[in-house]
């Protein structure tokens, strides 16, 4: 039994002692399972217990501290230090923040595929992009748990001792019993929360991690931002009433720590870990660890992925069009390995690709390949699977634009997936290209993989939601992709682009994957394609030429369609939106600004793709414009 039994203290003093010890014990429980052992000496001291799993022996000596609440704990120096400090305060609240510290320096040398940035620059870049609010900090800290422990005093202690109706003896006994119960459940809870896995990972192996856990004990709460708070969940332990107040314990915790927590236990080459840690899929706050990669678009890799990412490991390097596959590859790999996404059948992916390939290669024979409008008129035969698609669109587009007239019905039927795929991501013109959009894209693509075979999904849903008739819009959409592919072909060697698609050749003949029939209308629009963006990958000069061509031909940007697209997309349900809402917002805002200043974008194309694509493209245009201006103005080169 606890040491308070044999004492001669008065009841209030006993109560206070229990409360004080309760604070100490709680802190001990929390920190014991959150502070990684710095070294073995921390727990190999006087105490017999050397690890939690070998602590079953009850014959070991029992220290007074263990007797409190009948709970023997391992030594935890951090807890002892902090509790000594806290004891000097007078039952002030105790706030324990558990902080996830990520060290970019560990990872930057590993990502040495691109030599453009020094490791320092890269890490700055890296972290900057991930945590805008932290500026250029070399390491990032994130509070993943906040434990708040406080004693709420009801009245002054004199009042309560006289006003208490129960016998004082019962009170302290009851308080003690309830404290024990509370501490037991705290002990179990601490091990059920996501952060425990991080702690265990840190301790379990000698492997160097790119993260560590830290803690901060204080007596006041630094409020979270609303955004931070939104990402956290709360668990409130039932307060323990005392005669003159109550003991309250609650925890705010980040429910998803999968960016670091899902690190696979299987040994893998360390160079992937940095990207893994920073996987944009895994954590909404983190963006684009692959930012510094100047070439290659991560979004393409999901296409190559067929069965599993381990298989993809070998495949990823094959597309010659992508000079630096591995950083972006691991990026996408990370997203795939997320529990939520890895269940999605990757085999669906290639289904969508053939269209793109076909468009590029066989643009003269659309009708042969897509003889039947599988989705253009009738509701999809298999609508139930559209959820991932809606996730994607919702995720990509969280615009809050007011309802607008939808000027073009083609907007409705434009399956974003289709265009997304037929058009490669905008070229990595410069290293400074915002990675947010990159992430959006890859996210979208990953989601795409789970979409139903038929494109009717997206269309179906959009049509349903907007209440527009779908029947009128089958053809225009096709003309986009078609025309874009045309220019693509005309201006550049298409063989270069076949790389990412090659793997999907066997799917080309799958009629189920066809987006719809391409009719002759398509030919009329061929001059409007902004698809010339990709060519930049090939050569700067050719790109400039293409751009000039496009600028000449491009119709004025249609703001209406842009917004209405947003509207449509925004109205779709999706669970993924939380993940991406921030980046999308920002990217959309900037994108809209750009849109107003640019006249190069083809409104049709914009409509036919997701807003994120459009934004990205707009950015690309802007960059190109700047580039041209600079090149025209003086001889200085604008290449980043």
């Amino acid at each position, binding site marked *: *039994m606890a040491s308070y039994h044999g004492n001669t203290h008065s009841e209030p003093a006993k109560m206070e002692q229990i409360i004080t010890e309760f604070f100490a014990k709680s802190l001990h429980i929390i920190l014991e399972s959150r502070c990684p052992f710095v070294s073995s000496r921390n727990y190999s001291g006087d105490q017999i*217990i050397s690890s*939690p*799993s070998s*602590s*079953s*022996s*009850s014959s*070991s000596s*029992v220290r007074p501290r*263990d*007797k409190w609440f*009948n*709970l*023997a*704990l391992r030594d935890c120096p951090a807890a002892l230090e902090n509790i000594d400090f806290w004891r000097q305060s007078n039952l002030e609240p105790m706030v324990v923040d558990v902080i996830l510290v990520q060290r970019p320096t560990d990872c930057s040398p590993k990502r040495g595929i691109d030599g453009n940035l020094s490791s320092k620059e890269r890490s700055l870049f890296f972290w900057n992009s991930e945590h805008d609010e932290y500026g250029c900090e070399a390491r990032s800290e994130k509070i993943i748990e906040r434990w708040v422990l406080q004693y709420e005093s009801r009245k002054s202690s004199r009042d309560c001792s006289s006003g208490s109706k*129960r016998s004082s003896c*019962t009170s302290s*006994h*009851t308080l*003690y*019993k*309830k404290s*024990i*119960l*509370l501490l*037991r*459940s705290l*002990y*179990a*809870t601490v*091990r*059920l929360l996501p952060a*425990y*896995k991080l702690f*265990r990972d840190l301790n379990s192996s000698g492997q160097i991690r790119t993260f560590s856990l830290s803690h901060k004990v204080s007596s006041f709460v630094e409020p979270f931002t609303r955004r931070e708070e939104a990402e956290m969940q709360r668990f409130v*332990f*039932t307060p*323990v009433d005392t005669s003159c107040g109550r003991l309250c314990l609650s925890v705010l915790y980040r429910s998803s720590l999968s960016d670091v927590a899902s690190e696979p236990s299987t040994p893998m080459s360390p160079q992937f870990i940095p990207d893994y840690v920073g996987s944009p899929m895994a954590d909404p706050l983190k963006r684009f660890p692959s930012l510094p990669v100047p070439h290659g678009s991560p979004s393409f890799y999901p296409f190559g992925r067929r*069965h599993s990412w381990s298989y993809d490991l070998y495949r990823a390097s094959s597309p010659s069009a992508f000079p630096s596959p591995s950083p972006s590859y691991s990026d996408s790999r990370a997203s795939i390995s997320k*529990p939520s996404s890895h*269940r999605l*059948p990757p085999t669906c992916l290639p289904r969508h690709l053939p269209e793109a390939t076909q468009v590029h290669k066989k643009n003269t024979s659309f009708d042969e390949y897509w003889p039947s409008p599988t989705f253009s008129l009738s509701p999809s035969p298999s609508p139930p699977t559209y959820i991932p698609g809606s996730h994607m669109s919702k995720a990509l587009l969280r615009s809050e634009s007011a309802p607008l007239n939808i000027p073009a019905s083609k907007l409705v039927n434009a399956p974003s997936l289709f265009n997304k795929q037929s058009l490669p991501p905008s070229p990595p013109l410069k290293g400074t290209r915002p990675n947010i959009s990159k992430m959006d894209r890859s996210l979208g693509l990953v989601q795409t993989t789970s979409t139903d075979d038929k494109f009717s999904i997206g269309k179906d849903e959009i049509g349903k939601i907007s209440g527009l008739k779908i029947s009128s819009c089958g053809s225009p959409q096709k003309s986009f992709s078609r025309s874009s592919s045309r220019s693509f072909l005309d201006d550049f060697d298409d063989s270069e682009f076949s790389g990412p698609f090659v793997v999907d050749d066997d799917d080309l003949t799958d009629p189920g994957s066809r987006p719809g029939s391409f009719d002759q209308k398509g030919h009329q629009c061929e001059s409007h394609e902004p698809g010339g963006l990709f060519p930049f990958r090939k050569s700067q000069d050719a790109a400039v030429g293409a751009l000039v061509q496009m600028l000449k031909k491009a119709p004025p940007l249609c703001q209406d369609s842009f917004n209405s697209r947003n509207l449509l997309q925004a109205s779709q349900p999706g669970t993924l939106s939380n993940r991406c809402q921030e980046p999308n917002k920002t990217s959309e805002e900037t994108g809209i600004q750009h849109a107003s200043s640019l006249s190069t974008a083809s409104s049709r194309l914009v409509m036919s793709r997701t807003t994120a694509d459009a934004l990205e493209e707009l950015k690309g245009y802007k960059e190109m414009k700047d580039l041209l201006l600079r090149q025209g103005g003086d001889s200085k080169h604008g290449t980043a």
Partner: protein
Amino acid sequence: MNCEVCQLKELEVEHFEIREVLRCILHTILFHRALGLVRPKDIDLELFEITYVQCGDIELEKKIDEKIDQFIDKVEKHPNKKNQICLSFYEVKNKQATWFTNKVERLHWEQWYINLNVAQHPKSPKTHSGKSHHSKAVVDPGESAFEERSVRRAALESSLREVLFQIIKFVNEKKDHVPSIPNLEGVSFPFEITISSSSDSAFGMDMFKRMLQTGHPTMLS
């Protein structure tokens, strides 16, 4: 005296998962009722990413394992789909000699019902590896089957987590009925584990009897 009853959320388990799941649940409950001096022992589940806590008492562990063996035995012999394990805590009260027995009476103050829905024995090949504890690592030729299983596994893991939180919440909310510690002998309050299947006709009777037994003023508060 009230006997608090907690019906835990039903879990869909496969045969090979019974042991881990039951251990996890039973030990978690018992840890919360082991108010004597304990030296907690963390146990990582093999099948799931879950860590639970044992109170580190060997006798108690043995008792639990025995009961789990019985349960598995019963599931095999009588493959009723719905199975229930009841963990009940009681206090021993010496009855007055004036009554017809001198036996000690068990006064139940808390009952936990663990509901398991054990999947029928696998006939399809996709689950034949299921008996192994390492089925996670077994490479299944059927990709969809594998996927299906990992989905199912993930679902069970989150359900199990829910159950654990259900236990924690219950423990948090109901504290008044727990007997006071000075009455405690040994690490945990005395408990018994009973196994029943929903098809047992005796089951209802059993429960009824137990209900009658409970109801006495042990509570001090």
